């Protein structure tokens, strides 16, 4: 085991998978010498050269389209979209082609593509550099969504994503890059589609993913001081969803809080909350509660940003409300 940064875990996964499989290549803006806006790919061009660590012009839509076309002829491309906000420029190629080609061409093609992208706020970057847009992808069949919260899962899930034969959106909340965690020294993978109980508890199930898991764990500690035992589940993958792990926990606790950094309306929690309602209505002792960003753009001012984005305090209060229901 070694303790490494989240960004290092991503870099190690890229390095190991590129050494393992020569079909893997990286495409993105400023990813070669500069190492990407968050320096995640720093040092890779020295090892693998500019053909495989391929700097692109600022052309998000066609970078993704090029990835799709290259995958059709045997490549396994990984695209870095510098900020998740910029993925809106590539939605055409992602939704119309990457997500559909396999199905609409009668399963003639496989598209092993990974789209890595930093999401989220809490850095004061303002409305077009702070978004968490993963919920858009939940309503688009054909793209898996991974959003790990620890260096361990980031490395293991990125390896799974690269070895997967489907398009995978790999969401890296930028607040996580500087967090540290234990990572095995030997090769390992974390399969996509498996949620993880990261804290056991009996009174309430708190479900989240990516950076919000850290907020939920902090809230759980605060709740423990109040005598509340919160079970925290890290979804890790949003598509496919591991409903079994969620159901097992809720059958035990009967109470649910969901938390995400994205907008409240039509968000990840909205979808999962409804699925839980459909499956577990008779197990629920209280209405399902969600914690999410306000339905306004993420502002730049630290005061406003903190007000708009959810944190551990919001999770703590939501749990208290859910427990207050009889």
């Amino acid at each position: 085991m070694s303790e490494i940064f989240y960004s290092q875990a991503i870099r190690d996964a890229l390095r190991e998978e590129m050494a393992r499989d020569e079909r893997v290549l990286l495409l993105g803006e400023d990813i070669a010498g500069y190492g990407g806006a968050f320096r995640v790919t720093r040092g890779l061009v020295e090892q693998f050269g500019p053909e495989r660590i391929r700097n692109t012009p600022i052309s998000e839509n066609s970078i993704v389209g090029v990835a799709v076309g290259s995958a059709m002829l045997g490549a396994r491309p990984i695209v870095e979209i510098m900020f998740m906000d910029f993925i809106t420029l590539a939605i055409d190629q992602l939704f119309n082609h990457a997500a559909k080609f396999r199905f609409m061409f009668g399963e003639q093609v496989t598209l092993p593509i990974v789209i890595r992208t930093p999401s989220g706020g809490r850095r004061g970057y303002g409305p077009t550099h702070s978004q968490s847009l993963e919920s858009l992808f939940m309503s688009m069949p054909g793209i898996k969504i991974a959003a790990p919260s620890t260096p361990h899962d980031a490395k293991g899930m990125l390896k799974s994503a690269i070895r997967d034969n489907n398009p995978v959106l790999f969401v890296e909340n930028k607040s996580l890059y500087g967090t540290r965690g234990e990572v095995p020294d030997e090769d390992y993978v974390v399969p996509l589609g498996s949620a993880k109980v990261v804290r056991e508890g009996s009174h309430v199930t708190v479900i989240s993913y990516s950076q919000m898991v850290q907020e939920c764990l902090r809230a759980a500690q605060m709740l423990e001081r109040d005598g509340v035992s919160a079970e925290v589940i890290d979804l890790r993958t949003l598509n496919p969803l591991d409903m079994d792990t969620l159901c097992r926990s809720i059958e035990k606790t009967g109470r649910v809080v969901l938390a995400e950094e994205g907008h409240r309306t039509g968000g990840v929690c909205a979808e999962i909350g409804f699925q839980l309602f459909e499956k577990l209505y008779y197990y629920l002792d209280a209405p399902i509660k969600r914690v999410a960003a306000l339905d306004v753009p993420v502002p730049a001012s630290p005061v406003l940003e903190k007000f708009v984005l959810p944190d551990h305090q919001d999770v703590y209060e939501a749990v208290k409300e859910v427990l207050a229901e009889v």
Partner: protein
Amino acid sequence: MSDIESRQLLSYYRTMLLIREFESRLDKFFVDGRLHGTTHPCTGQEATAVGACAGIRPTDYVVSNHRGHGHFIAKTGTPERLMAELFGKATGVSGGRGGSQHIADIASGFLASNGITGGGLPIAAGAALSIKMQGRDQVVLCFFGDGAANQGTFHESVNMAAIWKLPLILFCENNLYAMSTPFNDAFPVSNVSDRADGYAMPGKIIDGNDVCVVRDAVREAARHVRSGAGPYLVEALTYRHCGHSKSDGCEYRPDAEEAEWALKDPIKLLRKKLLDAVPQQEIDSIEQAVRNEIDEAVAFALDSPQPSTDDLEGSIWAN
């Protein structure tokens, strides 16, 4: 005309006629109510499809667009599974899931077509990138219309292909209208090929209704891109003798213009040329053979089973 040349022309004639007959049959089926959905016919543009595919090798790749029946038949040589696709059958080239504008036949090198204008350009550039990185000597022929040349993907993909010197032939079928919008309303330049300079690549404008001119231009382009010199733009001037899609009556086009282009029908022009070189009965027998082949394609489509709905949701994922 040498014997080899006339054989070649007969073969082009046969394929062009196959495309024309295929689409005129579709038209009838829509009128009869036997087909539903929509289709974008290429009637009048058969010389670009056949000429361009004749200019590349069978091992090269094609990326097509929404108006792709001609490209498909020219590249794969067979109308059967395309006809089945139009009927939504399990034996269709896309298993009945794609319909008219979402077709692929990877084994024949027909990589993709799709309904997003300009959507195929980055796909073609990506395929060309794989070819280059794997050190293979194939090329990608990407068909697109004048309308697509105003999409952001045109600039983005052509630019990438040019800086990376990808083996990509950009084949623009300029039929003078982007749906109903005349070329001059959408372009500040006179020709799509005027834009080639901006990417430091050759841009050649040709008569798209002469199949031999098209073939020769694409041959030259293929030589250029195969040598590693980067992409090459061919702009073929042509005209669709029909609406943009089956619901379009073409009210926006002047009658005189339509009449002028009707005289330049590529099939009529080629037939006239062939009559000077081969006996009339040879042409007649090709025309009969084409009708038979389309009859067989229709029979195949009608006799084919409907697609299964089992595990449709599971089928979106590859193992």
